[in-house]
């Protein structure tokens, strides 16, 4: 019985954090945000650590680690609001290929995804969060038509993994004929999402297993990754708030000596730390107790998002006016948490899925 990280896991997360501290300071984030599809130099540094191949089996050039390891990486990326692909390209796309790719497809794509040569956007928003504006993809004779919104890691993607209305999964080349790509700008400029319009676009079907089950697992994994991202971003915001409160003086005292400020900080950490345990469990359950995966992923996402919203707001408040300005860049973390909350289903939707998963209600 061991509910904690191994020393390997701690070392891995440490090394990602140290690397990001070096290659991805706030100035680098500012430079990329809204301007570059992603920070390719930061990605390169992560490739050296094997991060893009973290869940990909070793035979395909990956590290072959668990989803918990991926969650630790996601936490580090959230901590540094790193403007690089990860959730879609390094976790969900590989899971799709591992789940329902043919051997040829695995050999073709997995190593390139693991090496960062290929970036994969993932279009599963309609299945995870519900369809807006009548979006949805139909597949007919190997060709896709329709619209997919809120495609993750859209910016700079070479291929897309696309779910159709009947939970079929497809690979589409980013340069395919009939594919229209529209960037969507969000509050979170560190992540480039977009919309895909398909007009009879050639696609490669991923069909060697159970695509519906794979899609469900992709959604679960994605939710856990977003929760871990919020955990990292929120944890960093608390650290920043505490550090600021220890330094900033008003009324002749550091503001961190005022009980009101201390209690805000105490409430933040008291809310966030149990999220860490919940995310660890959800990630572990994803691999070890798949029957609990849907429910635990949903809880990890919904609960961490609720706490994240509270932390983002409160840490900003503790910073006073400085938190509201662009000067300290605190808003990058604030907005990242805001993005994580809505992507792949907001808290209400995700909790609904948890109710269905445990048979409390029908679908």
């Amino acid at each position, binding site marked *: 019985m061991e509910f904690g990280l191994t020393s390997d896991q701690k070392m891995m997360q440490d090394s990602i954090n140290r690397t990001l501290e070096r290659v991805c300071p706030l100035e680098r984030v500012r430079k990329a945000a809204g301007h570059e599809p992603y920070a390719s130099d930061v990605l390169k540094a992560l490739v050296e650590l094997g991060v893009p191949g973290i869940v990909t089996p070793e035979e395909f050039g990956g590290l072959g680690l668990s989803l918990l390891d991926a969650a630790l990486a996601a936490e580090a990326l959230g901590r540094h609001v790193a403007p690089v692909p990860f959730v879609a390209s390094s976790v969900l796309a590989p899971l799709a290929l591992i789940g329902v790719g043919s051997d040829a497809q695995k050999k073709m794509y997995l190593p390139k995804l693991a090496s960062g040569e290929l970036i994969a956007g993932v279009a599963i928003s309609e299945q995870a969060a519900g369809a*807006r504006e009548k979006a949805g993809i139909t597949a007919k004779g190997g060709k896709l038509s329709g619209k997919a919104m809120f495609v993750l890691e859209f910016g700079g993607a070479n291929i897309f993994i696309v779910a159709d209305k009947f939970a079929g999964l497809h690979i589409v080349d980013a340069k395919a004929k009939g594919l229209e790509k529209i960037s969507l700008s969000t509050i979170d400029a560190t992540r480039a999402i977009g919309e895909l319009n398909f007009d009879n676009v050639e696609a490669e079907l991923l069909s060697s297993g159970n695509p519906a089950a794979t899609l469900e697992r992709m959604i679960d994994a994605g939710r856990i990754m977003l929760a871990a991202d919020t955990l990292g971003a929120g944890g960093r915001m608390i650290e920043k708030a505490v550090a600021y409160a220890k330094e900033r003086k008003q009324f002749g005292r550091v503001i961190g000596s005022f009980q009101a400020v201390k209690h805000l900080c105490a409430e933040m950490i008291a809310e966030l730390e149990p999220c860490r345990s919940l995310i660890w469990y959800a990630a572990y359950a994803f691999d070890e107790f798949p029957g609990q995966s849907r429910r635990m992923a949903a809880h990890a996402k919904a609960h961490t998002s609720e706490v994240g919203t509270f932390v983002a707001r409160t840490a900003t*408040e503790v910073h006073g006016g400085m938190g509201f300005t662009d000067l300290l860049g605190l808003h990058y973390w604030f907005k990242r948490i805001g993005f994580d909350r809505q992507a792949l289903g907001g808290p209400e939707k995700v909790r609904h899925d948890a109710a269905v998963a445990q048979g409390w209600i029908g679908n």
Partner: protein
Amino acid sequence: MDLSYSPEYEAFRTEVRAFAKQHGASAPRGAMGDMRAWQKLLISNGYAARTIPKEYGGFGAEPDVLKSRIIAEEFIAAGLPMGMAGQGISMLVPTLLELGSEEQKKKFIGPTLRGEIIWCQGYSEPGAGSDLASLTTRAVEDGDDFVINGQKIWTSTAAQADMIFCLVRTEADKPKHEGISYLLFSMKMPGIEVRPLVTMTGRAEFNEVFFTDVRVPKKDIVGERGQGWFVANATLKHERGMLGDPNQAGTRLKALIDLMQNEEIDGRRLMDNPVFRDRLLKLQARVHAMEFHGLRLLTAGLRGEDPGVARLIVKLMGCELNHQLAAFAIDALGELGILYSGSPHLRASGTWQTSYMFDLGLIIGGGTAQIQKNIISERGLGMPREPKAAKA
């Protein structure tokens, strides 16, 4: 309790409505149209600068909060711009009326009311936010002038402003509340640099202003030298008097109800989602409560009664409510709710996100929620101040 208006006020409302109908088409909209001409028209009809004496360029009516409210209601209903509402008009003018010299009143009030002088406010500093009295911008005497050095922040219209009303420390050796003076000077003086201050919304709603050896005549002081803290507090009192939408939250709620009835997810109206609907209802109750609370304060004002703690809670509760309304809109919109600044599919031009962030700024600014709670507990409930810290 009687929510009807007496005939006098109904007649006034009719008059305002007629004005709105007659002039609505020619009113300036957004950046379009001549705002100064509009302002003059409003003053001459008593819909702006209503209670400012005629001799200083106002309309010269008796104060009547009910009429002010009717003007605001009708202008908002007709989608007309209210009179100019910069910090010069809302804060400096009342201060000059109360504490300015006759010369200052004559010189500044009229042009300010007519939008011929745009002012900015030089109060906050990087090291003096909640604790405003600890400001350090220094004004040192040199002949007939003060020479000013230092920095201000959160100066909202600094880039457009002709003039500034500014707190500076003239008496370095006095206790912190007693060494401050309230100066008026031109923003075109040499030595003034304005730098836009970008906020989390991505825009520069504020500025930083830097003073390097700025020379200001000693006579351009309002009130006595060293009394600037008390002059400024008279001004701060007026900040709360700024007339905006008397029911901004109500306007937002209406937009939220529309959103819930019109947006769909998986082909189902958001209004048919009981969890979102319940949250909307909770917010509706709060909006109504604050709306009626406003009427209660208005009535207390009309009666000359002191509403006590009921007044002190308005900023805390109002800002929080606006923030929560925006938060709800974002959640209800889901992924659509995180779209921003010119994106396709953007709803309400992204104003829900802007509000969500800007309202958080308002919760923080002008006295954080923490300071508000201090005020409510001390002034409203008579609880003791925190004891002064012992010297370490």
